């Protein structure tokens, strides 16, 4: 990175660390920070959308729809995250490949399941074996985002469902008295007012989502936990320019600081949003 990095052994401590922290592997670590932030940036709105749909479905007067919504929230919430992550990602991947296999290779005669192997025709692999590694990584990332969104969407659905019920009944009756259709009163009266009731639950979820991002590691995505472990492990002078002992403690300490700082910033931001939303509301915690 820097011009003086050519002979790491001869450097002073400061320059050594300057060079050490800018090696190619460390750049990978910094990139993975971006991965985590992108994951959060996509997952939060998508799971909110899933949650909204789930809550709407649960409230529906059409029985199958409300059953669907309730099954989604209670099933996904009831399964441990790790189990869901391991099962769902594999199942989703195989389902996609199986579907593509049926379309792309209708003439394939060999069985797809051969013992432990799940073998679709090479043209049906997602992504294709021949595609560059970047495509594989992006695909894996989006499967992870989708899985996160489903899990957190179920929790969000429950929060929003409760928030919708918390809006005072008198508000809805007034809307009906003004002659609004159920649809109109839902969108014009219920939805704008429910956010303040949903916010404590949603902010809780956001915090849990931040803390849950290391689950990416389980899905084989090289996130900050992976790189912290990889970089912190002892490096011998025979193979590495910057040898050091077991520094995992320091790297994990860095992770701790990162997550604490991130959740703290979120707390401050969420407090501000709560203040703004509760402006003029007549209940405890509001401006009354």
């Amino acid at each position, binding site marked *: 990175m820097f011009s003086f990095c050519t002979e790491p052994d001869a450097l002073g401590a400061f320059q050594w660390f300057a060079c050490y922290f800018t090696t190619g592997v460390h750049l990978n670590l910094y990139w993975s920070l971006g991965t985590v932030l992108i994951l959060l940036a996509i997952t939060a709105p998508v799971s909110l959308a899933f949650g909204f749909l789930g809550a709407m479905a649960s409230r529906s007067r059409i029985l199958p729809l409300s059953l669907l919504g309730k099954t989604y929230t209670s099933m996904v919430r009831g399964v441990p995250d790790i189990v869901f992550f391991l099962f769902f990602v594999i199942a989703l991947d195989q389902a996609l490949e199986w579907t593509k296999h049926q379309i792309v290779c209708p003439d394939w005669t060999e069985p797809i399941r051969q*013992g432990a192997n799940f073998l679709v025709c090479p*043209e049906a692999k997602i992504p294709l074996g*021949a595609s560059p590694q970047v495509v594989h990584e992006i695909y894996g990332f*989006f499967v992870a985002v989708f899985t996160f969104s489903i899990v957190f969407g179920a929790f969000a659905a429950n929060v929003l469902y409760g928030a919708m019920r918390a809006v005072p009944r008198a508000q809805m009756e007034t809307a009906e008295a003004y002659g609004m259709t159920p649809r109109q009163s839902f969108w014009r009266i219920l939805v704008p007012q429910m956010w303040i009731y949903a916010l404590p639950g949603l902010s809780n979820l956001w915090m849990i989502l931040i803390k849950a991002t290391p689950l990416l590691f389980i899905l*084989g995505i090289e996130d900050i936990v992976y790189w912290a472990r990889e970089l912190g492990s002892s490096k011998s002078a025979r193979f590495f320019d910057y*040898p050091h002992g077991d520094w995992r403690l320091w790297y994990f300490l860095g992770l701790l600081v990162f997550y604490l700082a991130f959740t703290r910033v979120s707390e401050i931001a969420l407090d501000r949003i709560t203040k703004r939303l509760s402006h003029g509301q007549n209940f405890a915690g509001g401006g009354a």
Partner: protein
Amino acid sequence: MKKLLLTAAAAAVAASAALAGSHSVVRMGTEGAYPPYNFINDSGEVDGFEREVGDELCARAELTCEWVTNDWDSIIPNLTSGNYDTIIAGMSITDERDEVIDFTQDYYPATASRYMAMSEGVDLEGGVIAAQSNTIQSAYIAETGAVLLEFATPDETIAAVLNGEADAVFADADFLLPKAEESGDLMLVGEPVPLGGGVGMGIRETDGELKAKFDAAITSMKEDGTLNELLIKWFGDDQPTY
């Protein structure tokens, strides 16, 4: 989200039309945490003995290869489910593994595994011995009277000895040797234990064609001595060669 997935799928379909043929790119799966066999170097690339051997094999077999890393514990399941096409990760050829996947001939001769501890005279028969899970070493320790302590990565097995959790670590001699040389505290103890049938590349059982290509390339590397040169370059002058 769904739209994104669909777009990605559509892009994949479009790409597949251009690249017909089964193995236009061979994906080489490795662990990346087991120097000198394979590790991630300072610039973030896969490096080590197996990187050089693998690149040379691909050149000889006229294949385009791409390197990917995967956790050791799930390295076989991810091969069988097709996430990559070969395992080249210091994996010893054993009967149990051979039931699930196929191996090429060995590109690294059968060598000894060693114990490494903080002091001489550690109880290797009845003490606590650390080993990486799903390895021939952990299987061996489970058979002895010692208490087996398993870890997911090789580095953790050594850390366990250093912090006193385990009395000794049992692993490939070539992995332990540089660690023992560098550390003032660690030393190789006990007698070498010959284990395994050499290291080969793992390939899906249905992939006979690819296996034949790599077998031929390994034979040619053995015949002209390039494999021996690489063995000595990475493992030192005492390394048994072909």
